[in-house]
Structures are given as structure tokens and as C-alpha cells.
């Protein structure tokens, strides 16, 4: 990450599809990256599901729409897009997304759209060099 850049650390626990917190967190991450703010993410517990690459869009039998008509970007697509956005180039911030490895193993979600495998020690490392921390816990 660029020296002297502002860095935000976000710890998130929620899985996709259940709460408004996930969308809010992803939007915060994007806004920060676009402002040149580096973002560390520690995906904990259900949040490791966000980037799981096996997510599949589906047709909607209630609405009678096809997969194509639904055009459903599952959260893994958003996570992947943030991974591309957060490359630290063109004045954008750099994204360092760490998935809790034990949480990944519990859920069989080794295949991830972005980020790296880690653990609590990575969250601790994030805390040493961050401007601020936002914990978005499951409620």
C-alpha cells in the first residue's frame, strides 16, 4: 500500500442475502477505494461466503424470469469487482481482503473470488497500521 495513505480496516461477519449490512459494507469499501483510501477487510464467519465462487445466479420461478432476465450479480461478482478496483492504481486505494481460513474450512468455501486466506493474526496486523476500524458484526 502507498505510504502515508489513509487506511480503513473493516471486519465483517454477515453472510450474503440476509441483511442490509453486507451491501452497505461493500458500498463503503468501494467509496473508500475510489477516494484513494486503502481498505483492509477481515471476512469472518459467514462473511467468507461473500466471495465464494460457486455462487450461481438462478431463474426466478415466482416472477417467471429467466437467468438472463434476472441478470443477478451474486455477491461474489461484487467482491471480485472490488478486488479489481482495489489495485492501488490510478489514484485508487488498495484492497487487502483476508478471509478467515478456519471459517472458510467450516463452510467448504476455499474457492474465493478475491483476497487471501488468513486468520486473527492478520486482523491484528491490520490494526497496527490502520487509520480507523469499523466492525460490522452480525446481529
Amino acid at each position, binding site marked *: 500500500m502507498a505510504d502515508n495513505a489513509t487506511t480503513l480496516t473493516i471486519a465483517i461477519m454477515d453472510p*450474503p*442475502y*440476509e*441483511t*442490509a449490512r*453486507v*451491501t452497505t459494507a*461493500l*458500498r463503503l469499501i*468501494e467509496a473508500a477505494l475510489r477516494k484513494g483510501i486503502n481498505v483492509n477487510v477481515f471476512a469472518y464467519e459467514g462473511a467468507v461466503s461473500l466471495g465464494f465462487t460457486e455462487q450461481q445466479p438462478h431463474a*426466478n*420461478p*415466482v*416472477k417467471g*424470469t429467466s437467468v438472463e*432476465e*434476472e*441478470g*443477478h*450479480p*451474486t*455477491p461474489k*461478482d*461484487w467482491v*471480485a*469487482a*472490488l478486488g*479489481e*478496483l482495489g489495485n492501488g492504481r490510478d489514484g485508487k486505494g488498495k484492497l487487502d481482503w483476508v478471509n478467515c481460513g478456519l471459517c472458510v474450512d467450516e463452510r467448504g468455501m476455499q474457492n474465493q473470488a478475491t483476497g487471501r486466506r488468513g486468520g486473527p493474526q492478520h486482523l491484528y496486523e491490520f490494526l497496527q497500521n490502520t487509520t480507523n476500524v469499523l466492525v460490522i458484526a452480525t446481529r
Partner: protein
Amino acid sequence: MTTILNIVERAYQGTLEEQDDQALWLIHALKNAGAAQSVLLRGPATGYAVREQLADSLEIGGVKPGNPSRIDQDLQRLIEAGVKVWAIREDAKERGIAPEDTLAGIQWVDRAEVAGLFQEATRIFAW
């Protein structure tokens, strides 16, 4: 015949990701499977009754939902499918929701009338 009263209170949770409200979706699917259903909107979910909702401005990392959630239209489809949709008048009023801004098919009830709805149902699901 089993009649299910679905009390929907939790609102706008994961609907941007899902492109649907999960409870309303399941209610409609059960209706299509033959279940007799009704819906009572209470608390935050009274906002679902407001017409012309559109969450099409969401975009994350340049990726937009292809079919953004239209909760009012989903409710309208439920009503047209024969599902009675009640909503609690006081809960809407507390949130500044004006009846003229809501779907015409919503049947507004006072809190004091809710117990009567329970008596008409054989199963009550709280969402």
C-alpha cells in the same frame, strides 16, 4: 384447509443482493404450490406498501443488479394472485407513510384488529 397468516416485519434485509424480499418470495412460491396465504405488514415492512419503489441506482465496483428489487410490484403480484395483504395503520403512520402513497390493494387495519386476523388463520408465520 390450512390458511397461513404471514406476519412480515423485517424489511429491506438482503433485498438488494437477492433482488427480492425473501419472505414475500417464499409466500408467493407457496401460493403457487396451492397454499392459502395472507400477509400482515407490520413495523418496518409497512414501507413495502409504498408505490413506485425502485432500487436501481445500486452499483458496486461497476456491477449493477440486472433486475433490481421492486417490492411494491411483488406485493401487487401477490394481491393479484388472490393473497390478502393487510398492513397496520399505526405502524405506517409512525413512519410518515401516507395511505395515498400506497398500493390500492392493501387492507389497512388497526393494531386492535390484529388479534382477529390470528383467529382466522390455522398457521401463523412470523418473518
